[in-house]
């Protein structure tokens, strides 16, 4: 005769699953934030490099809501860069690119760590899911008997 899983154990497993799910959501949103930051840094590098490559220093400046104007960069060599702690410093174009590349590497390292944690959480969730599935099947089988 099949012994059904204790209802309390089933409920606890459901709680675990819910809790892990909430944690996973937080890590997923952190991953998204890191990815956005990484893409933004790549775009900035591309723009900084493009600025140096133009002969007349004219760029298309986006004002928002799809509106843009042609603008002339007076000093493409000088870049105002937020380095952290709400501090902005003036850097040379190349230095700014180097800084952004370092930031990208940092973000990629963080992404790796968050992704590893997320993988661990998901594998724990899979385990719980399997146990829950077994529990439900046992309950159903016991009911049929």
């Amino acid at each position, binding site marked *: 005769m099949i012994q059904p899983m204790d209802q309390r154990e089933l409920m*606890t497993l459901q709680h675990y699953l*819910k809790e892990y799910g909430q944690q996973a959501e937080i890590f997923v949103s952190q991953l998204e934030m890191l990815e956005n930051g990484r893409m933004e840094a790549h775009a900035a590098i591309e723009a900084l490099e493009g600025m140096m490559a133009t002969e007349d220093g004219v760029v298309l400046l986006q004002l928002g809501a799809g509106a843009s104007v042609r603008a002339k960069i007076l000093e493409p060599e000088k870049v105002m860069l937020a380095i*952290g702690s*709400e501090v902005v410093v003036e850097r040379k174009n190349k230095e700014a690119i180097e800084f952004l590349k370092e930031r990208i590497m940092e973000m990629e390292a963080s992404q790796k*760590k968050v992704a590893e944690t997320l993988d661990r959480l998901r594998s724990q969730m899979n385990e719980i899911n399997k146990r829950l599935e077994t529990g439900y099947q046992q309950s159903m089988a016991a009911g049929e008997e």
Partner: protein
Amino acid sequence: MFGGLKEKLQAASSRLGSSIQSVVTASGSSGTGTAPQVSVPEKERLGSSPPRSVSPSLIDKFKVLVIEREMIVSKKDISDALSELELTLLESDVALPATDAIIAHVRKSIVGKQRKIGESVDSLVVGALKSALLEVLGHGFDLLGYIQTHPRPVKILFTGVNGTGKTTTVAKIGSYLKKQGFSVVIGAGDTYRAGAIEQIGVHAERLGIKIIQHPEGGDPSAVLFDTVQYANSHKIDVVLADTAGRFHNKANLMSQLEKIKRVMKPDLVVYVDEAVAGNDAVTRAFEFDKTIGADAVVLTKADMDSRGGAAISIAHTIGKPLMFIGTGQSYDDIAPFEPAQVVDELLDGGS
């Protein structure tokens, strides 16, 4: 933990050492071998002139003489290296006031003081950086000592913004205190977030800690009042009061927190935030402290924070000690913040 900051600090420390070393080499310029030389102006303790003929024995003697001489490092000698250190700290999200304090301390430790040439440049620089960091980090917070020296139950209220790991931190600290031999009761004061009561309930059950719960949507002040009553009647050592996450600019939620404070009269208000938030965590802690007060801070997710800016700056910026650091998912992944240990790890290359 704080791998990026560690790497950058060690590089900055090495650059600072090189600056001192190069000034010494330039001013001494007389082949002092491996003995670290020092800067301008220098005065000689033993006034013998350098040897003209060079033989191994004479060089050895000269090394001894140089080692016995003294030097003074000038502000100019290290200004470039200090500027680099300043940028390194800012890039690691160390708050500006904390960065300024560290730079001022290092400058004060190194500039204008007489140094023996024999003194290792490395130890001079690392020593100055260590004492600067220790000054900024403060003394931490000895929770066990606090509990032992205060009337029971010691009531600890946890506050902070949403999603930073407050509830998990309450469970981790409960587990830590239980292992240290204290009896603990948890108050499920987050009656707002869906599933929060269940979440803390599961933690408490897993840890074998008594929990006081009311239905979802209830008054958190009532839950926490009942928790304190339970602790009083059962002679429990510590009350850990969980609360809903909130932002400091939400007036109604902050006034709810003030009510909780009035009702349960906590001995300690602990602000919880995540280390990965960097300078934002420092700003938020400052605002929380200003609005409802905080006695100590816990930083979570430090294992994912490569920069370490929040951990370095928070105590100095808001003037409240860092109590615990959360470093992972399991209950044991929390440790009391030990400033000396953190500084050693950052500068001595410990793990």
